[in-house]
């Protein structure tokens, strides 16, 4: 085995092209989130809020963080290079969990109601909550409203439901621009939201994470819950994509 195979790579562009610059965080004024005072702080991290601290991750996760920090600090690896590797596996944890939730909500009106009323409990019904105790809030796309999820300050992400966060979600450009110019960001993802559709941006925090319930596409009336789960993409549950009916779908129709 040879360690030296160099394999330069062209990664997909995504929003990464825009990820250079745009460092400033957005003023959170436009956010729809039930955010509390916690996101209003813009100063440093040097104050103590003993009542309000974040849960300390498991020791093993801290050991990994320590390895990375030490090696990055010494310039032996870069976080960006690690992200590139992790990014290629971004769908490799819990990728279908969120899709299962969405598909069930599409076919089961009572479940949809429970899901929108109490996302944590309804997702828990399917056994998909992680041990982190974060609350899940599900926001529904409609013909009038399009929802978009971001974490402006870090990269809070419901990974038990959606898997590993994609690198662009963690980029400072996405975090800032999703709030300042969500329509532009969406169009860069290939999603043009009509002017008369309201765009709501939800800012995740350590204690509450959001999942978008996308609209069920026309032409999928004959699909089973399982088939539906197969067409729900991760991006649609972040809100940067729509769910599309499969080309030449079951009905072959174009309603």
């Amino acid at each position, binding site marked *: 085995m040879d360690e030296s195979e*160099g394999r330069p790579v062209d990664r997909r562009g995504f929003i990464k092209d825009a990820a250079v610059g745009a460092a400033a965080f957005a003023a959170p004024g436009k956010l729809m989130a039930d955010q509390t005072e916690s996101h209003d702080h813009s100063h440093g991290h040097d104050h103590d809020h003993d009542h309000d601290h974040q849960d300390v991750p498991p020791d093993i996760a*801290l050991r990994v963080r320590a*390895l990375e920090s030490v090696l990055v600090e010494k310039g032996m690896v870069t976080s960006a290079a690690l992200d590139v590797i992790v990014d290629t596996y971004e769908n490799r944890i819990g990728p279908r969990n969120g899709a299962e939730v969405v598909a069930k909500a599409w076919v089961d009106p009572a479940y949809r109601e429970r899901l929108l009323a109490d996302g944590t409990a309804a997702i828990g019904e399917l056994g998909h909550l992680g041990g982190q105790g974060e609350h899940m809030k599900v926001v529904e796309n409609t013909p009038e409203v399009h929802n978009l999820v971001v974490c402006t300050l870090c990269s809070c992400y419901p990974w038990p439901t959606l898997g590993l966060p994609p690198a662009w979600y963690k980029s400072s450009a996405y975090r800032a621009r999703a709030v300042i110019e969500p329509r532009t960001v969406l169009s860069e993802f290939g999603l043009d939201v009509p002017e008369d559709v309201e765009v709501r941006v939800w800012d995740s925090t350590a204690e509450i994470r959001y999942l978008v319930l996308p609209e069920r596409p026309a032409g999928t009336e004959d699909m089973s819950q399982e088939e539906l789960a197969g067409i729900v993409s991760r991006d649609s549950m972040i809100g940067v994509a729509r769910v599309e009916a499969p080309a030449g779908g079951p009905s072959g129709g174009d309603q």
Partner: protein
Amino acid sequence: MTSAGRGGAERVDAERLAALPPLPADEDGPVFEAPWQAQAFALAVRLSEIGYFTWKEWAGTLADELAAAEARGEPDDGSRYYHHWVAALERLVVDRRLSSSAALDDCREAWADAYRHTPHGQPVELGRAD
């Protein structure tokens, strides 16, 4: 020991994966139960790509760690595979003097502290000035 291209890697090829003690995977490649596992995976991949150790050395160290766990009587059901992965990584990093146990411990403590003292909703960062 040439450095891999700046762009990093596409998915780790099957040949390298096959050289490891069998890792949690399905037909489409490795699967992870939590982000830290993927991060640890990436660290080993990247360090070997750059040439701090060979993939063969990595596989050997990981195998040693797994064998040691088995000798301790830990269940061999794959549930702690990435715990052993991290232990192997720490061992190799210290062996190659990329860092020291003390430095790793200090840094881990610093991260735990950062979590304890960072309010909800704020990015957790290591303090630098103090």
